[in-house]
């Protein structure tokens, strides 16, 4: 039977708002918020895991700090000063490691979000609701961002208490702007990784691999200048590289950065690119997985 589109006409009432209406946008925003609340409730149902995750950033940064202090024989590195204008290795590493947790947000929290729903058995249930699937992923991203912010605050308190940190207070506001720009791009990257998790059985390997590569190419524990040229070129693709350079220039005294303005433009370009790329891949994979009937399979 050949179908023909005859005309548009009103039919049965649909109980949920749809389309580009205020009501629908409000509903999607609420869905994002409730996804975030749901993630919090599930996380707090495992109190030991929650507490552990809060102190994890402190654990992960310590070896870098101890190793750096041992190598240099103290807190001050002449070689680092020549490279970036500051020799304070503790402040240098701390600013880098602040970002490390947010890389985890993109790769693990967002990246594994859809896969986790599959594991719970709830993916098909949430996919049969009229809420946009990206809203669900963004809700989980919101949870992870807030969670990581709390962990970073705890990390800051601990490192400041034990080692002391020399950071410029007036640099906080521009740092937050850079952080926000970086997070938009990381969200786009995270949406891309979440799509991979749907289509690859061993998605955690891809996530782990991507995190390792991103960390290697980001100036988390060392300036970009020590990387080979090809690696420095590759690092421009990730938002963490320009973000870290920008943040350090605002937060750390004497930190030299060639042009600060370029950081904002660079991040803006990455935001647009990663969001478009991530969303496109997400919808393509969504279609592919629904075609294969693999939504319910873990």
């Amino acid at each position, binding site marked *: 039977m050949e179908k023909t589109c005859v005309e548009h006409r009103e039919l049965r009432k649909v109980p949920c708002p749809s389309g580009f209406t205020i009501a629908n946008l409000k509903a999607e925003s609420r869905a994002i918020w409730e996804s975030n609340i749901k993630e919090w409730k599930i996380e707090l149902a495992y109190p030991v895991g929650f507490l552990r995750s809060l102190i994890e950033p402190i654990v992960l940064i310590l070896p870098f700090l101890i190793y750096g202090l041992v190598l240099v024989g103290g807190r001050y590195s002449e070689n680092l000063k020549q490279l970036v204008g500051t020799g304070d290795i503790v402040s240098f590493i701390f600013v880098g490691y602040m970002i490390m947790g947010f890389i985890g947000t993109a790769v693990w929290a967002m990246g594994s979000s859809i896969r986790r729903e599959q594991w719970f058995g709830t993916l098909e249930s949430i996919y049969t609701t009229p809420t946009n699937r990206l809203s669900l992923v963004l809700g989980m991203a919101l949870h992870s961002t807030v969670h990581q912010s709390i962990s970073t605050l705890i990390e800051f308190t601990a490192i400041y208490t034990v080692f002391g940190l020399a950071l410029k207070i007036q640099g906080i506001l521009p740092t937050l702007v850079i952080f926000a720009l970086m997070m938009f791009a990381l969200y786009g990257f995270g949406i891309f990784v979440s799509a991979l998790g749907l289509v690859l059985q061993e998605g955690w390997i891809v996530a782990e691999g991507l995190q*390792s590569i991103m960390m*290697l190419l980001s100036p988390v*524990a060392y300036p970009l200048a020590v990387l080979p040229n090809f690696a420095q070129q590759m690092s421009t693709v990730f938002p963490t590289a320009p973000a870290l350079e920008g943040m350090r220039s605002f937060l750390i005294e004497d930190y030299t950065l060639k042009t600060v303005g370029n950081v904002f433009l660079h991040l803006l370009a990455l935001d647009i690119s990663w969001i478009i790329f991530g969303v496109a891949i997400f919808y393509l994979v969504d279609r592919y997985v629904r075609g294969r009937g693999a939504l319910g399979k873990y």
Partner: protein
Amino acid sequence: MNAGKHILKTFSGTNYFVVWSEIVKNIKILLAYPVVIVFWAIFPVFWFLPFVFQGEAFVGGLQSASFAEIAGTPNYVPFLVVGAILNSYVLTSLWGLGESMRREAYQGTLDYLLASPCNKAFILIGKAISESINSTFFAISQIVICVLFFGLEITLGAIMPIIFIIILLIAGLYGIALMLAALSLQYKQSHDIAHVLDYVFYIFAPVRYPVQSLPLWGQLISKLLPLTYALIAVRSIIIMRQNVFSLYQEMLYLLVMDVLLIFLGFYFFNWVEKKTKKSGTISQY
């Protein structure tokens, strides 16, 4: 007579078959995931690269005089490489054997495993051996990468002593992993305990820096870890080119630790298994 029969029964062919079956099963499952094999064979190398670059940034080369004062060698790269390779045994024992019971529970096979008439110790031995085979394969792959790209030098004469030290390390780690596996039967958030153990090794084991860089209390914790002695011994052989017989102290500590940890591991596992069967929570996850 009865004790003799019991001993014979313990070492009978069926028990060896249990061990063999467990090894074959685990390896077949691993072979079903070729991507996982490639990952573990290569990626642990990526995890120490940031430390290499960090070293270059802070000291401007591949040697550090300050490092030499504590570690006994200015070459921090081979120091890191040895740490990374041996640390991968910690990762596979904690997340492999340690989490194996939890994985059985997820798959729904734990009840059947524990209801089987064989001695559970042999199942655990089978799991431990299969994990050792996996870890050794991955370690060899990582060593080849490090020899080719990071200038790691291993003389022929060093190979047998290193293998011996690694066997001692594995035995101790599996004692710890058994206790973790036991906890996962009773306590459903064992994943977090595995993480905490991982953190302890991550900070206090001399994987990236010598034991002496830690404060006194940190050094005490470090000396309770089998990895510490294994690292000191292997580095002494590869980097310092010391004779293996001069490392008798480290070997002895490792041996004593192994006996203690393995005994504790099996005892704890049996105790928790009985407790969990009584409470009826064995297959919940």
